[in-house]
């Protein structure tokens, strides 16, 4: 972003990578996949690099408003300095915080989740997906809480699966009734409270019931949780947990 600014140019969109997308080895693959799709679709995008900080979602939901305000206000200062208007992110938690919580702090942006963005590119004809790779393959889709129930986005990701020619098999708990992966509300960063079972195991069992060989997800934390669940069930070689961007990259052979 700094380079664009120095040259006096404005990118089409800012790709907000997020902590997971930047540092988590598994989520980095998603970041790369989405970057490839943007490039392949001819989207002129920028990233913030080290100027990006955590949006503050886990701190706020853990109750630490001070830490949230500190990181959020810094981000807003910087985004406003660069006069950023459009942001795309592959993390529904970043998406929700940037979209719904930053306005009250003075940060108003047009924020879009990467599944919506890819679907828009597809509709505009900038992104093409040739079927074949996933034809006839059973794909189930895991609604993340912050994309689905919290922000009401259920269709864009499903339209992408349709474009992939995959056979979408829904879980019993989907869309508004989707079951959490267990990571939200800063649970990702702490041990579970005592109980009978981990939430990701409950969800993994539901996935296995569908008989799907691929789980399409839209959130780096869900991917971690569900991959761990597959490992616990020793199904990591039979059922693949992927972000939608990775499936598109696979289909396009990028």
């Amino acid at each position, binding site marked *: 972003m700094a380079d664009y600014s120095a040259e006096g140019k404005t990118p089409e969109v800012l790709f907000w990578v997020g902590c997971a997308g930047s540092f988590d080895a598994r989520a980095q693959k998603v970041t790369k996949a989405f970057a490839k799709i943007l490039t392949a679709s001819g989207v002129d995008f920028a990233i913030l*690099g080290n100027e990006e900080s955590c949006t503050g979602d886990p701190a706020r939901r853990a*109750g630490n*408003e001070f830490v949230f*305000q500190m990181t959020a206000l810094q981000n807003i200062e910087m985004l406003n300095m660069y006069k950023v208007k459009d942001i795309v992110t592959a993390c529904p938690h970043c998406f929700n915080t940037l979209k719904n919580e930053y306005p009250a702090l003075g940060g108003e942006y047009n924020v879009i989740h990467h599944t919506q963005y890819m679907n828009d590119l597809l509709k505009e004809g900038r992104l093409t997906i040739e079927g074949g790779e996933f034809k006839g393959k059973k794909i189930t889709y895991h609604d993340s809480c912050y994309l689905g129930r919290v922000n009401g986005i259920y269709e864009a990701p499903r339209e992408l699966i349709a474009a992939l020619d995959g056979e979408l098999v829904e879980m019993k708990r989907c869309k508004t009734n989707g079951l959490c992966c267990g*990571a*939200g509300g800063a649970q990702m960063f702490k041990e579970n*409270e005592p109980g009978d079972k981990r939430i990701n195991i409950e969800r993994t069992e539901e996935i296995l019931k569908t008989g799907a060989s691929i789980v399409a997800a839209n959130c780096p934390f869900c991917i971690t949780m569900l991959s761990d669940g597959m490992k616990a069930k020793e199904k990591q070689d039979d059922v693949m947990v992927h972000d939608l961007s990775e499936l598109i990259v696979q289909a396009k052979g990028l």
Partner: protein
Amino acid sequence: MSIGQIIFTLVVVVAFSIAAKNYKKVYRNINLGKDEDISGDEGQRWKNLFLIAFGQKKMFKRWIPAVLHLSIYVAFLFTQIELIEIFIDGFFGVHRFFAPYLGGLYTLIIGSIEVLSFLALIATFIFLVRRNLLKIPRLVKPEMGGWPTIDANLILFGEIALVTGIFMMNGADVVLQQLDPAHYPSSGFLPISSINGPLLFGDLGLNTLQLIERTGWWLHLFTVLLFINYLPVSKHLHIFLAFPNIWYSKINSRGEMENMPDIMNEVKSMMGLIPEQEMDPNADFPEFGAKDIFDLSWKNIMDAYSCTECGRCTDVCPANITGKKLSPRKVMMDIRDRATEIGNNLDTGARKFISEEGRAANEPLTVDNYYDGKSLFDYITREEIHACTTCNACVEACPVTINPLEPILKMRRYEVLTESAGPSDWLPMFTSIENGGAVWQVPDDRDQWAKEMNEEGN
């Protein structure tokens, strides 16, 4: 004025006076919470009121209980017409006041009430079976032990009494209309009582019939008056509170946690974005988040009093499903019980509930100097609030738009901001964000992946 009229008037006046006192207590208890301005978006609020409150839209996520509940609800609404007549008859000492004026319409109204009452009766029996014999999981969770289950069953028995009253009085009336048409105006053909009446009471004499008719009439009226008094101490209060509760429910996105302007401005002044805040050196360290009822919003408490303990929230809670202690329903029940406890203590005016400072200053007991050494944390454990994934499933599930997530997060804020407590696992995350701008402490650059991609030749 006949003796009947006098007794009727007395009973009604006494019943309503006691009830009014208890409704005022609920109103007062709701207002123990903080002021919060909830206004605007009237268009959306009307829509919610019609679709979610009157239309019961969110009930229909589960068809079986939705249809059963709808039967009782519609019967309840319709029977109000008959209740108006009962009140007119009682006050003025007349019998079936509307019958001669409305004619065929009267037959239609009373006939519909009969059909609906019959459906409600069936629904009531099925509800009893679901709760007590089938033991539907969400109806028998730990927080439902003791009073909540008795409460639920009492309401269902009340329903049976109401409907029994109607069929006794209508059934006997149909027979009396033949024997004494001068005093018993014709109600026309009633779908249930015109068959049931002659069948059950056909051979009885005038006096017995009158006795049955009056018993039914008084049974119905008495149960209604009992209900009116019972509601403010029961989960059944939802039949009234559902409407304002849905009207005042949050219109803005679920994704936005309530901003804390005090902290925002503090941080802004630290960052030099706004002038330094004048600090009062004598001011107490401010408390953030919610420790007790007084720190919640009035809407959180109205939510609690609107809860009818159906458990749809708990049934979809990922933490509860996997055996954790958290139950959103219990959180709401606890808030209600704590508000009621404080309200009742305030009513005693006892000195033991006055804070030390208040006692020293010889103040009478008020909301401001209330202190009983307890807090919401004595009802809701930390383990419960720590288990929440903020997934919003409970918020989505509630048929009367209660938000159990908001108080949970307010309690987390109290724990972390005011007590500097909370799960120790979270501390590294807080520190990393504060010092390194990321949720994990990582030495790499944020754009390491981009550098790798460049190296890979993309």
